[in-house]
């Protein structure tokens, strides 16, 4: 299978952008200016990038506490993201949400939940609305292996299959829920893989391989868009940083240094760049330029965010209700 250069470059760009943004957040996190619990997705960039490469601006996503990657890959506004982390009025959620509650309706992102599993039925409901409105949009739901502990996933998938909704369930299996390994919580491969394919096509892919994610989700999006119903994709990946905060804040004792380093070697970005270089789909110089471009955008975003004003305390009560 060959891929258009544009697609490959887009995948790389998105992954690099997500990574650089995470690193930039991390590098400034100990300044104690971003007073919000960040959940970095370093190592998991291929999932968001690979899936969102198929989505149009007005397609929807549903995201979770570890949502910077989903937000950026879907085209969410970078400045508004960073401003949100700094608790500014110009943040995407006007400083009310913080890192775990991002939103960008223009990019089809209607808000992420920090309740594990909370976004799953919401994304399913969005799929139902799409169907009722006879639109060709799709709704993609990102959730972690921790969310797969929750019964609401079973209920939502049952409903999506029953009503043939245009929903793509993306299980981002990084093997941990905080410090709990999946083997302490679940009994094997997600039980949804065991469903007959005509009910719910499902697939396990290497979540650190952007093209594997891209391929599987391409089929799922196509299926959803043509009214054939939901799909389920499990992306096997790994959280390189600790559960929350930056590298220095991870605790030890719940996973081995080898495990982290093994997965570190399987960096989705490094391997993708190597492959592209080998196939002559990109040059070192182009990568370098991309990196510079990204870095300057990030610099701008941080400058913008840091000088922005925090919400006026008098507006504390605003927006509880829509008038």
């Amino acid at each position, binding site marked *: 299978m060959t891929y258009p250069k544009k697609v490959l470059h887009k995948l790389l760009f998105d992954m690099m952008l997500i990574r650089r943004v995470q690193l930039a957040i991390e590098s400034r996190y100990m300044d104690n200016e971003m007073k919000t619990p960040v959940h970095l997705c370093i190592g998991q960039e291929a999932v968001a990038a690979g899936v969102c490469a198929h989505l149009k601006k007005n397609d929807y996503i549903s995201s979770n506490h570890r949502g910077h990657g989903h937000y950026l890959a879907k085209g969410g506004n970078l400045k508004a993201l960073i401003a949100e982390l700094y608790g500014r009025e110009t943040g995407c959620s006007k400083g009310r949400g913080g890192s775990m509650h991002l939103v960008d309706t223009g990019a089809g992102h209607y808000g992420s939940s920090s309740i594990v599993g909370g976004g799953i*039925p919401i994304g399913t409901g969005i799929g139902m609305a799409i169907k009722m409105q006879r639109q060709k949009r799709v709704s993609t739901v990102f959730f972690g292996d921790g969310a797969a502990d929750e019964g609401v996933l079973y209920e939502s998938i049952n409903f999506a299959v029953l009503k043939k909704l245009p929903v793509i369930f993306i299980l981002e299996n990084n093997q941990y829920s905080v410090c709990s390994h999946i083997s302490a919580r679940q009994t094997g491969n997600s039980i949804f893989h065991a469903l007959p394919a005509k009910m719910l096509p499902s697939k396990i892919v290497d979540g650190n391989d952007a093209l594997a994610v891209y391929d599987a989700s391409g089929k799922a999006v196509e299926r959803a868009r043509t009214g054939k119903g939901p799909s389920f994709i499990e992306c096997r990946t790994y959280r390189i940083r600790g559960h929350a905060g930056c590298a220095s804040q991870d605790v030890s004792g719940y996973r081995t240094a080898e495990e982290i380093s093994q997965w570190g070697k399987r960096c989705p970005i490094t391997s993708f760049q190597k492959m592209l270089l080998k196939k002559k789909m990109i040059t070192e110089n182009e990568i370098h330029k991309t990196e510079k471009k990204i870095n300057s955008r990030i610099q701008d975003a941080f400058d913008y965010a840091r000088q922005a004003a925090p919400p006026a305390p008098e507006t504390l009560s605003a927006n509880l209700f829509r008038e």
Partner: protein
Amino acid sequence: MLTSENKIMIHEPDFFRECGACKRVIGYPEAIREALQLAMQNDRRVFIMGQGVDDPYGMFGATKDLHREFGRERVFDTPLSEGALTGISVGAALAGMRPVYFHNRPDFLLLAMDQLVNHAAKWSYMFGGAVHVPMVVWACIGRGWGSAAQHSQALQGLFMHIPGLKLLMPSTCHDAKGLMLAAIDDENPVLIIDHRLNFNTTGLVPSGPYTVPIGRGIVRRPGRDVTVVAVSHLVTDAFHAAQDVSSQGIEAEIIDPRTLRPLDEELILASVAKTGRLIIADCGWKTGGVTAEIGALVAEKGFAYLKAPIMRLASPDLPTPAAGNLEEAFYVGRNDIRKAMIEIVR
């Protein structure tokens, strides 16, 4: 018991109803049904879902046969899955629809608390107003015939505590329709808690569309001696009790808050300013419930008016027992309110 066939319908008492010159009498279930019908006719975004909305019971009549008129795409049965389906309503609302989600009983909302409280109620605020969730959830308190502890809970005391939810409790046929229409019109999550006893009543209901304003209570009966704030079907009980004691020279003012959140504080305070006495009658539990909030509100903002201790009439702090005679001991009603009226003016 479950059958509505041989139900005896009772006409609402002759209290103030805002019905203008309307002389049209229909049943309470029909009033709700009419609201749904009008809303669905006027707005393609409105749809109805819930376990059994399209079955022969039709949610005690409130949704009966609507699927025949609007099709099963807009009026549909659901899996029980109360947790997910609430989130599905949230999602549908975010994406431009107007879900109305029916439950037989508030007890089942306890399976949906995460989506109601953590999600629906917070979504607008948490995202700085970028998004909002116009959805209606409706549930009907069971009572009697041994419904027992898990099928008779009046949980308004829980939901009254949640910022971001609006909470309506109609008591008349007129308001059942007008509040449903207001709820569907509202851009925010609205919970309607209804009561099975209301379903046995008939009342004056204009045929066209109208809304009852959310956040505005109403004086059902003016009086000078004591203010009684009563919730849902207890408005009727309080009204009858007021008539009972009128002959003894006690004139009770009956206030129907209609919406518990937002609560019409001014109306209550103005009444207590006049009467100096307050009884609160609620069909939920006493501790930490509706009577607590309204009592504390008056002790905080209307203290100077009070001539006597407030009185709180509510269900005892117990699960509902099944046996008929225990049920009778459990529920508050007209007699309790009458006694309280007499006691408080002493």
